[in-house]
């Protein structure tokens, strides 16, 4: 799971990095464009300055008012462009160039006051050193503009250098992150493969044990017997569900269903222990409560693991008298389906392995056509797609609606539980169904 998540994070990171780089490029282009505009406007200032000088010269030579108007227009445009350049230089933080612009503006004002306006007012009184003064102004202003050009160009180069450095930082940083994610993903993948291999090995061992100890249904007189065992899905650990139908005599049969807490090999091994121990006790004792009590003692003495406990129902079915005597150690997934409805068999004691308590025995009288349905908690704790458990009520409804033939009933219940979880079994499920028939008349 971590692999796809890491890949997703890495991809998201790469995409975010692309967008960030794009934003940086856009910002750089924007700043560069503004600086270029400022450079162009500075050149325009110079052109307007020369236009003003030429207009004044033209007026002093020709007295044509056109030149005076040209001078005014150029001066006005000069002021506007000067404001534009000033704002652009402020925005880009070129303070030194701003100082030069102030100097430029002062010189331009001085030229207008001392040279241009007197000449426009009195074009006949051209001072002897006019050309020199014009030249001095021009030199000074050109020097300032040259200095400003250099400063703005420096700023532009600095911007490019900064942006390049930012790009390099971004690329190196992103690459480092991607390498880190890749390493983490590889490490996790290796860890995950190892864990999966271990789980598969354990599951294979457990499956072998289950196959070795799983009960086969034996035919019983006056009864039809069905059973089903469904394992949880591959990804989940195997549990310790167990059932057994074992003939104790011509008319008596041991019926057992149990659910061992925990998963894996330990639970699977314990099922074998339970099956054969219960059979051995049942061969000596026919009282289900006594069978459970003796097993409980053996269990406590044998199993050291305090986290292991067992819910179990042990029954002794008399196939001639049609009576089921049972004891239930916390196993509540046990039912009898009758023509009048489905009845849950009461629990008669606590789960095994917790405390030493006496276990009561109950007797259930059966009628021909009645069906005993014993299941593990895979039935009652099955969840639907919204996570809601089926519980006893839902299980009883399923049993009531199921096919009356025991084997078909078991298969149908498994199919419904599988469908309930969208073809996914979260837990193992064991079911036995025993339907009693009218006892056959004894042979004459």
């Amino acid at each position, binding site marked *: 799971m971590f692999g796809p998540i890491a890949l997703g994070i890495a991809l998201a990171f790469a995409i975010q990095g692309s967008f960030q780089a794009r934003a940086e490029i856009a910002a750089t282009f924007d700043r560069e464009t503004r600086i270029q505009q400022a450079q162009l406007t500075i050149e325009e200032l110079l052109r307007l300055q020369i236009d003003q000088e030429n207009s004044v010269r033209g007026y002093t030579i020709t007295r044509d008012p056109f030149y005076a108007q040209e001078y005014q227009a150029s001066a006005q445009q000069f002021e506007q462009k000067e404001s534009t350049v000033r704002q652009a230089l402020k925005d880009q933080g070129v303070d030194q160039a701003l100082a030069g612009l102030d100097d430029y503006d002062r010189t331009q004002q*001085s030229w207008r006051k001392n040279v241009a306006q007197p000449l426009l007012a009195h074009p006949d009184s051209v001072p002897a050193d006019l050309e020199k*003064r014009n030249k*001095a*102004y*021009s*030199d*000074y202003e050109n020097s300032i503009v040259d*200095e400003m050009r250099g400063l703005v160009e420096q700023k532009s180069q600095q911007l490019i250098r900064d942006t390049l450095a930012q790009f390099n930082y971004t690329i190196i940083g992103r690459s480092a992150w991607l390498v880190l994610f890749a390493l983490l993903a590889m490490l996790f993948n290796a860890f995950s493969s190892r864990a999966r291999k271990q789980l598969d090995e354990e599951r294979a061992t457990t499956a072998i044990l289950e196959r070795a100890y799983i009960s086969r249904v034996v035919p019983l007189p006056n009864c039809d017997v069905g059973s089903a065992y469904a394992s949880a899905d591959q990804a989940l650990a195997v549990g310790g569900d167990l059932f057994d139908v074992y003939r104790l005599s011509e008319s008596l049969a041991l019926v057992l269903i149990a659910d061992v807490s925990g998963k894996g090999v330990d639970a699977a091994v314990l099922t074998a222990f339970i099956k054969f121990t219960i059979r051995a006790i049942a061969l000596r004792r026919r009282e289900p409560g006594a069978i459970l009590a003796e097993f409980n003692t053996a269990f406590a003495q044998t199993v050291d693991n305090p986290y292991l406990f067992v819910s179990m129902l042990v029954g002794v079915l008399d196939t001639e008298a049609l009576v089921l005597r049972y004891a239930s150690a916390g196993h509540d997934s046990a039912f009898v389906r009758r023509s009048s409805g489905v009845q849950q068999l009461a629990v008669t004691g606590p789960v095994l392995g917790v405390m030493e308590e006496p276990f009561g025995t109950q007797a259930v009288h059966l009628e021909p056509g009645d069906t005993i349905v014993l299941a593990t908690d895979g039935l009652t704790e099955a969840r639907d797609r919204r996570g809601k458990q089926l519980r006893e009520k839902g299980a009883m409804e399923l049993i009531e609606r199921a096919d009356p033939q025991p084997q078909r009933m078991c298969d149908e219940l498994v199919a419904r539980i599988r469908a309930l979880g969208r073809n996914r079994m979260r837990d193992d499920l064991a079911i036995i169904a025993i339907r009693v028939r009218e006892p056959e008349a004894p042979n004459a």
Partner: protein
Amino acid sequence: MRRRILAACACVVALLVLGIAPASANCGLRTGSRVALYGSFGDPDVFVWESRFRLESYQTGSFDIDQSLLPHARLASPGTRALVLACVPRYVHPKYRSTLDDAVLIKLLGGKYRGQTGWVMASDLRVMLGRL
């Protein structure tokens, strides 16, 4: 007598070599080069200064100082021909420029001020390739 005249000439040559030639050793313009004047910054007219100190003051001073210096300069038209007499390398540092410029002593060979000498910046001179 003849020997004395030769010695005096040798001294003059030595003085010229020691006084001017070393000064122009790193200049872009050689003494004796024929040049034309052309202003390097916008206005093509060129100020020709009475002394290299005034040239320096003009290039490095404030605008008010520049105005007061104007009586000490002649304004030569662009294209005026001249002869390089001497050169002082990296002498002028114009206020708004990052590089130093050479101060060059020239003799004007044409225009209104023909025959007069004065100081200009090397960047205001263009070397003439053909005969003047």
